[in-house]
């Protein structure tokens, strides 16, 4: 059965809520602004609503169903304890503008999580409010900009490696910078000498991902930081891959000035089909004074204080660059992340990064005889294994292999990223996969790799066992249909014809 749209099964008469019987009549104070026509919103009764969304959900793949080997996305198990905690009334049912004395526990969560993030990264401070990774990047870059402006230094360029996430250049541009590439060496790492050569008084900073998007640790990170600092710039690190090194090395010890942390990756707040995320930014001593409002600070008497516009100066933070969002950031994600962190503890987090890296290397070595592993020869990878399409038969692509994976019961890996490898396949298993599960995945991948090398035409039309065959994305973009509208042909007297129904 195909699931119709709510607009096709709902109507304006039906509602799935009961409202109090109108009591008496108060004169309206809406003035002349009262709505005149209908909105056009369909309603469903509660039973219909439950079915619609339950059925829809079953067309999704999810971590709860299987491995999600998306490189750079860190799709790991989402513990249900975290969901339970986030729903405690003291967290879920608290208004962001309640008097501070009525939200000490909420501020306590923010502060406790901040403490962990600082300790795990070896940094000096943390901006908690950014709403997602890209928002965190923006926060970090704005800190750099604020720090430079504070010293009257109007630099214009941010250097970004070609292999960076697209958010990095977009963020730098959004903050008003020009973006220039940093070249990579043959090993898949930043070319330190080339970088040094480019540094100068116009370079505000560099944005580096470490471990990088080839799944490799930037061995020269400390040297890079030192060089950038020596040239008067700052080092931003994209923390998307922090899961690989958590408890193994502290970014602060590598000279990094700012790094966002994707709570929804590293600390397992659920991805939720695309968000909400949360992107706190840890900051070096040099950048901490410029972090955005509001933030929390623990006073000498142990009381946690909320620092906003009015009291930033008292708290020695008058250089704060301002506010990045209404309210306090993603509280719901903070409670989940803190719960996750406390469950693991310092030992469990270190074990997690170890198992994540172990799983990735196991995959790398279980597949490198059937798939091209461009950087596989130089040593272990970090939390993700990178392969290319070299060796595929004429006409077979990474996309074909990835769609074939769907038929094997798995979500595809990250494809065509990073750009530096042709037909890249970036596989990140995370630490929450069992060996038996990974072995199944490896078996499927080996079979698909053989088929891609042999030129199996059936792969080109995969998936065959998914809720949908390949979708026409070109048509979607050419003739965008972005909202439902009533069918142009008038329906008959009865119900609308539901496409595919019956």
């Amino acid at each position, binding site marked *: 059965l195909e699931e119709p749209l709510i607009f096709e099964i709902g109507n304006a008469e039906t509602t799935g809520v009961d409202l109090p019987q109108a009591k008496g009549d*108060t004169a*309206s104070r809406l003035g002349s602004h009262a*709505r005149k026509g209908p909105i056009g919103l369909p309603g469903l009764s509660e039973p219909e609503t439950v079915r619609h969304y339950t059925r829809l959900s079953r067309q999704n793949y999810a971590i709860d169903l299987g491995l999600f080997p998306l490189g750079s996305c860190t799709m790991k198990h989402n513990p249900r304890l975290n969901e339970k905690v986030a729903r405690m009334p003291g967290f879920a049912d608290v*208004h962001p503008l309640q008097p501070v004395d009525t939200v000490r526990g909420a501020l306590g969560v923010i502060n406790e999580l901040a403490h962990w993030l600082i300790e795990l990264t070896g940094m000096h401070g943390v901006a908690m409010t950014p709403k997602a990774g890209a928002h965190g990047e923006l926060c970090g870059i704005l800190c750099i900009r604020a720090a430079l402006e504070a010293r009257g230094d109007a630099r214009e360029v941010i250097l970004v490696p070609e292999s960076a996430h697209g*958010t990095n250049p977009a963020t730098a541009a959004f903050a008003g910078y020009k973006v220039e590439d940093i070249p990579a060496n043959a090993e898949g790492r930043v070319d330190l000498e080339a970088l040094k050569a480019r540094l100068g008084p116009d370079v505000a900073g560099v944005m580096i991902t470490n471990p990088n998007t080839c799944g490799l640790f930037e061995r020269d990170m400390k040297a890079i930081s030192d060089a950038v600092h020596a040239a008067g710039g700052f080092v931003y690190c994209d923390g998307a891959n922090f899961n690989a090194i958590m408890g*193994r090395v*502290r970014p602060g010890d590598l000279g990094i000035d700012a790094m966002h942390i994707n709570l929804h990756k590293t600390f397992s707040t659920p991805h939720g089909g695309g968000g909400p995320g949360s992107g706190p930014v840890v900051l070096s001593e040099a950048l901490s004074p410029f972090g955005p409002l509001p933030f929390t600070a623990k006073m000498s008497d142990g009381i946690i204080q909320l620092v906003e516009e009015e009291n930033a100066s008292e708290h020695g933070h008058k250089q704060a*660059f301002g506010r990045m969002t209404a309210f306090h950031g993603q509280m719901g994600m903070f409670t989940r992340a803190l*719960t996750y962190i406390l469950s693991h503890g310092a030992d469990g987090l*270190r074990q997690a990064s170890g198992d994540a890296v172990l799983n990735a290397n196991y995959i790398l070595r279980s597949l490198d005889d059937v798939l091209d592993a461009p950087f596989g020869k130089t040593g272990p990878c970090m939390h993700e294994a990178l392969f290319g399409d070299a060796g595929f038969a004429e006409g077979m692509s990474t996309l074909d292999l990835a769609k074939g994976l769907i038929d094997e019961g798995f979500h595809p890996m990250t494809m065509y990223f990073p750009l530096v490898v042709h037909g890249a396949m970036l596989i990140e298993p995370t630490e929450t996969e069992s060996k038996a599960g990974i072995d199944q995945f490896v078996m499927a991948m080996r079979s698909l790799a053989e088929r891609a090398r042999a030129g199996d035409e059936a792969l080109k039309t995969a998936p065959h066992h998914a809720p949908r065959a390949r979708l026409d994305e070109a048509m979607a973009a050419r003739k965008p249909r972005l909202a439902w509208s009533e069918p142009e042909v008038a329906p008959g007297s009865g119900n609308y014809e539901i496409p595919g129904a019956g």
Partner: protein
Amino acid sequence: MRYLPLTDTDRTAMLDTIGAPSVDALFADIAPAQYLGGPIEGLPLHATEMAVEKHMRALSQQNLAAGDAPFFCGAGAYRHHVPATVDHLIQRGEFLTAYTPYQPEIAQGTLQMLFEFQSQVARLYGCAVANASMYDGSTACWEAIVMAGRQTKRNRVLIDGGLHPHYVGVAQTMAKFTHAEIAYEPPVVEADAGEEALIARIDETTSCVVVQYPDIIGRVPDLARIAEAAHAAGALLIAVNTEPVALGALEAPGNLGADIVVGEGQSIGVGLQFGGPYLGLFAVRDSKLVRQMPGRLCGETVDADGKRGFVLTLSTREQHIRREKATSNICTNSGLCALAFSIHMTLLGEKGLNGLAAENHRLACLAADKLAAVPGIEVVNEVFFNEFTLRLPVESRPLVRALAEKGVLAGVSLGRLFPDADALANGLVVAVTETTNEADIDALCSALTEELA
């Protein structure tokens, strides 16, 4: 550790396959000077589920939950009853633990939901197209300002005093770095929403006029008049809504001429959550503007078998394709909150939303009348939806704190929202929703009477 499936037997076998002597050896690229040989000192070790839950519960109990007090806080975040069904459905693993739907063949659940969500938001806002959501209202507002600049190629942003000061703050922060010029004055606390004065400040350099509807004072500005003036000057009107329930009773901003309508969707389905995660809504009245929009868009198409299906589309606007030339750096949406909104809105439907709005308005009118009868208190608004402003005989901020000590969460003081504007110090913004009952209203009136006596 309960979340880590590998056994020591597994680890040994896997290291053997890899040809590495130990897990630590896999981190050989980290210089020994920086490599941490063991758990970071001074941090606790792993804990049982029971212990963690207990710790977190203790923290949660240090907060006064809105449901445990007469509660009147609004100012951009509203407490509404969310049916239990909503939370049940968003916790389905297939929704909760799915990734961004980049593989549409196995993500139709999320994609169809987003298409439905976009359609609901577009209709609610009186617009042609809505995106698949953004971080929250404040950032959606800034993205709209950026978009207006791109569209008009002007850089003067005229912000009405009625815009939520946090939203203003976000715009001011960003403008510092992007060199947009922000024209903004805090509001005057009177019944008149000040449309005349605003219109007078529109000129040929104005990229956009940003007006909140209803505004931070609870007033309902005349969008149609402002739209006319803005359009005459070649500027866009950005309408900002922080209380979507209001649109069950008030005309949709798009129908009044707003070009871009943005807002906070938290009221429907999402809950208070101390400010986040929330749900940024973003829509444009004219579908021609669609290629300038930020954020994800979900569109209808067909699959290879001709079946209807949905995909993320127009991604050439986005950072992962366009990198530094993208319309925004945004790369997540608020997917799960959008789901909650869409489910709640489906449960409501037209009838439920209208009824909910009517009930909110009825109770707010009742509260306004009762509060107006408290000696020393003046209700500023003539027109409002479910939120209005009181002028008190004393500074509101310490008063709110004093009432909180008595267990009454009386509202949001303008003193807290506008710490630098002395003229606003006596204002108190009071929100009333269907979760407020008459006993709550009476408790507020008594507490105020007592405190002001």
